[in-house]
């Protein structure tokens, strides 16, 4: 699915559906991109990627809001009673709506200031992104009539990204345990700090990135 039709380019026979699908799909794509930042950082050893994470995350929110607005104003013609009935009766609408609600606190605390003020709680709060990814895929999965391959693909990508984080953590922990047993070394500082919650993972890397930027 490409960009929207602009002047002279048709949106096809069912423009509302096209806009709905396009905005929804882009919200999911930006969510994938957001969650790709950490593995890319690890694999390339470059912190440059972190520069884009906030923007990518906000794009998820942006497209989710567009998607919801399209549903409310174009698909349902702004009829609140119909929307309310739809949300209550049809679980896939509810799932998407829940995902959007959960995105609000993340978008609201996306500033560096909020990150510093919330500290450890910020990291915990932003783990909601995994719940949102799950809701997004579930929402998509539940609405397709029959061809589940596209939502399945997103589910697989999210599972891989989550699995990567889980594996990385296990690997770091095991390395730390082995290290402390055989060599009497301390656990890696990063992991220890994260575990104790002294410094939130993202704030920590962010600070380091800030240092880099300062030169």
């Amino acid at each position, binding site marked *: 699915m490409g960009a929207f039709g602009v002047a002279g380019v*048709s*949106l*096809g*026979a*069912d*423009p*509302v*559906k096209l*806009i709905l699908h396009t905005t929804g799909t882009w919200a999911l794509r930006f969510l994938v991109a957001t969650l790709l930042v950490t593995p890319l950082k690890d694999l390339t050893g470059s912190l440059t990627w972190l520069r884009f994470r906030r923007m990518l995350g906000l794009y998820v929110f942006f497209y989710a809001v567009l998607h919801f607005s399209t549903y409310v104003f*174009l*698909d*349902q*013609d702004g009829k609140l009673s*119909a929307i309310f*009935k*739809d949300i209550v*009766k*049809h*679980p*896939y609408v509810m799932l998407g709506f829940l995902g959007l609600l959960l995105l609000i606190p993340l978008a609201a605390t996306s500033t560096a200031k909020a990150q510093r003020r919330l500290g450890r709680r910020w990291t915990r709060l932003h783990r909601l992104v995994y719940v949102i990814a799950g809701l997004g895929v579930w929402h998509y999965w*539940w*609405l397709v*009539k*029959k*061809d589940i391959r596209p939502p399945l693909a997103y589910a697989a990508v999210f599972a891989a990204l989550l699995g990567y984080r889980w594996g990385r953590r296990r690997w770091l922990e095991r390395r730390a345990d082995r290290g402390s047993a055989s060599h009497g070394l301390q656990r890696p500082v990063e992991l220890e700090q994260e575990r104790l919650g002294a410094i939130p993972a993202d704030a920590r890397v962010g600070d380091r990135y800030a240092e880099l930027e300062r030169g």
Partner: protein
Amino acid sequence: MAPSEITPEDRFISRRALLAAGLGFAAAESLGSFAGEAFGQTPPNPAALIFKKNAAFSVQEPPNSYQDITTYNNYYEFGTDKSDPADNAQRLRTRPWTVTVGGEAEVTGSFGLDDILKPLSLEERIYRLRCVEAWSMVVPWIGFPLADLLQRFKPTAKAKYVEFKTLYDPKQMPGQSSGVLEWPYVEGLRIDEAMHPLTLMVVGLYGKVLPNQNGAPLRLVVPWKYGFKGIKAIVGIKFVERMPHTTWAGSNPSEYGFYANVNPAVDHPRWSQASERRIGSGSIFASRRPTLPFNGYADQVASLYGGLDLRRNF
């Protein structure tokens, strides 16, 4: 929007008058000449048909554009996206075409489509089309009452249902290589539904030979039922005693039933059927309208279902 995308009703009618005056070809000849078309999204110039307009069986609502009707299709044999059929259906060869008739009837066997069509006279009917996905169109079909065809096979008293089958040929229908549905597509009607005067066998659209993506060379249209009952590219008709196992009902029995009558009071388990969005390139705002019982054909068909629990037999 290009002028070709919209067909004002007056122009449409005048063209129809011209066609009726003898500019069109006979159906049987023209179908053959057009079957070789293999390029482009839609055949640039599908052959015109001779038909008469059946106003008594047509709705007053303005029909959707030819462009909309031929580019927005659910036809999983050619892919699951709405645009896939227009892209992929052109490799389907619609001639020669054989329809095999069997089961509880006196006349059975394999028949060439042109032989089947020869004694039938074509008419145009402008019908509403309501998809189970909660969108709708208005389509000027060209066809003939299914009853006119079925009666010639002299169904016996045991013929309680009619079963239809789509062509199975993954080489021509690339979507059949995927397991998204069980192939070949099977649909069915109760014999009284099949014999109902509204039930149409279709060979054309907008006065022209039916494009492949719309189910050429022969498709079913049952206007008071959800669109998936309108089986396309029919190669088999069988009179049977028991209710046939139909494709969508078999693929998900809790969501799709055998009857599939349009019913705003019975929701799809995952979405509402109370309203629908009318397809049309021009409308982004306020395109939703209430869905009517039996898609607005209740006066003609509701009596078929006296005593049947429509909530259970969805």
